[in-house]
């Protein structure tokens, strides 16, 4: 009887996650872990060395202090150029991404071929490293801010269009239906029901990309595309670490300010 009872009880108490799903999750977990172990081996990871060497980092890090904040005036022109490049690039990318992200959202663009084509192009755009873009455009346009701006535009366009098309895909479709039902044209429908819904996200993504663009100019500086990056690189090469730290702190301040503006704008329009 007891035997019977237990059997019954067990039969009645199914596993929390079905065996098949469990196996699948375990398999994926093992693959990820396995690849990590392999990567650790290939990259010569060693916790001991890390702990041993940590002191070195401390010693080096100290050299960055005290940061020289008096350099603000000296670097201002380059910083201004960086900001200006980021402003232009972000603005243009934000404008261009509107049609692109609508075309790359499957709830607005119902034509499968068009949608897939735009997605494909955007994916390729996103794949190209910013450094390569900068190098190619410098080679094409010569040194100066323009190649940097164009590299930033393409770079941010990829990110923005992806993020925004995903937002568009998640909007409430009901108002669109209502507008269609009242005879509004497609453009009217988009303008009156899609735009208000994505506006807050749009702004915060644009500001996020603006921040990325400011930071990306560090890379751009290295290839002659202007901006604060050049100065930073030079300070490091000359061992003016406190100066480098000063620049980093100024970039940090800029990042925090942008983030603050972003929250404020979101609060204002949400």
């Amino acid at each position, binding site marked *: 009887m007891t035997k019977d009872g237990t059997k019954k009880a067990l039969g009645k108490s199914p596993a929390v996650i079905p065996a098949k799903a469990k196996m699948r999750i375990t398999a994926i977990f093992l693959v990820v872990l396995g690849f990590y172990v392999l990567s650790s081996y290939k990259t010569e990871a060693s916790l001991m060395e890390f702990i041993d060497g940590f002191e070195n980092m401390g010693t080096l890090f100290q050299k960055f202090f005290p940061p020289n904040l008096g350099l603000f005036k000296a670097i201002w022109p380059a910083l201004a150029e960086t900001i200006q490049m980021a402003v232009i690039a972000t603005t243009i990318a934000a404008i261009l991404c509107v049609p692109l992200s609508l075309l790359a959202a499957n709830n607005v663009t119902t034509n499968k071929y068009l949608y897939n084509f735009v997605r494909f192009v955007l994916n390729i755009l996103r794949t190209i490293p910013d450094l390569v873009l900068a190098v190619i455009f410098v080679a094409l346009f010569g040194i100066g801010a323009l190649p940097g701006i164009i590299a930033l535009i393409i770079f941010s366009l990829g990110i923005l269009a992806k993020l925004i098309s995903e937002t568009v895909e998640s909007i*409430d479709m*009901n*108002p669109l*239906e*209502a*507008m*269609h*039902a*009242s*005879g*509004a*044209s497609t*453009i*009217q*429908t988009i*303008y*009156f*029901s899609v735009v*208000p*819904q994505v*506006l*807050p996200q749009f702004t915060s993504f644009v500001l996020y990309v603006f921040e990325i663009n400011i930071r990306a100019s560090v890379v751009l500086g290295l290839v002659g595309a202007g901006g604060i990056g050049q100065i930073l690189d030079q300070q490091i090469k000359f061992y003016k670490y406190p100066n480098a730290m000063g620049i980093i702190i100024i970039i940090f301040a800029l990042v925090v300010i942008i983030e603050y503006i972003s929250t404020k704008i979101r609060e204002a329009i*949400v």
Partner: protein
Amino acid sequence: MIEFKNVSLTYPNGTKGLKKVNLTINEGEFVVIVGLSGAGKSTLIRSINRLVKPTEGELKVDNENILTFNGRQLRTLRTKIGMIFQNYNLVKRSNVFKNVLAGRLGHTSTLPSLFNMFSNEDRALAYESLKRVNIEEKIYNRADELSGGQQQRVSIARVLTQKPKYILADEPVASLDPPTSHQVMTYLRKINQEDKITTIVNLHFIDMAMEYADRIIGMRAGEVVFDGPASEVTEKTFEEIYGRTIREDDLRGGQEA
């Protein structure tokens, strides 16, 4: 006048939404369609302004077969049919007035509307409509600041602004509590009577249907199983529409609604 002649609709996945529906809805009528979830009420109503396209038969609105309509014709058709939805379908983040003005989009050319340039007539009309549903003081509130009943009134105002010949309402009160539901139904009825707008409403509740309708159409599994004035509704009608008496159905817990 709206005429369904042997209208059938099969969804791409094979579900039959409508099965050989024949109906005539006359000018100025207030028709309520009742039926269980999945009976095809929405499909029927949405066929009329071609939000879905019946696959067979003929559907005439004002003596034109709208099943052949395309692009421009469709837009014109839709401007004369107003629609009210269960979830109000307002743009939550826009203010009430903008939402109501959206009802005029079909009558406005695209470019000016993009710059929010509506004519004084349009704006006056929109304001007038808001007043008719007694919600004018919320004109500049954002839609998501309103309660459900208020939102539905805004969506009625939007439809009024459209100056339609027909109003379709797809379960306009399903998300509202009973007093508010009655309020909304009362407004719909009032507009039907004052403006002589032919009105077709979907409802789950047969009791509410009987209170407001000139005529009740019962649907079940894509077919019209009852069609007649509210006064003719009997216990048997209930059975026809709901398959069996309500109580019994419920007690068979296992079944899905």
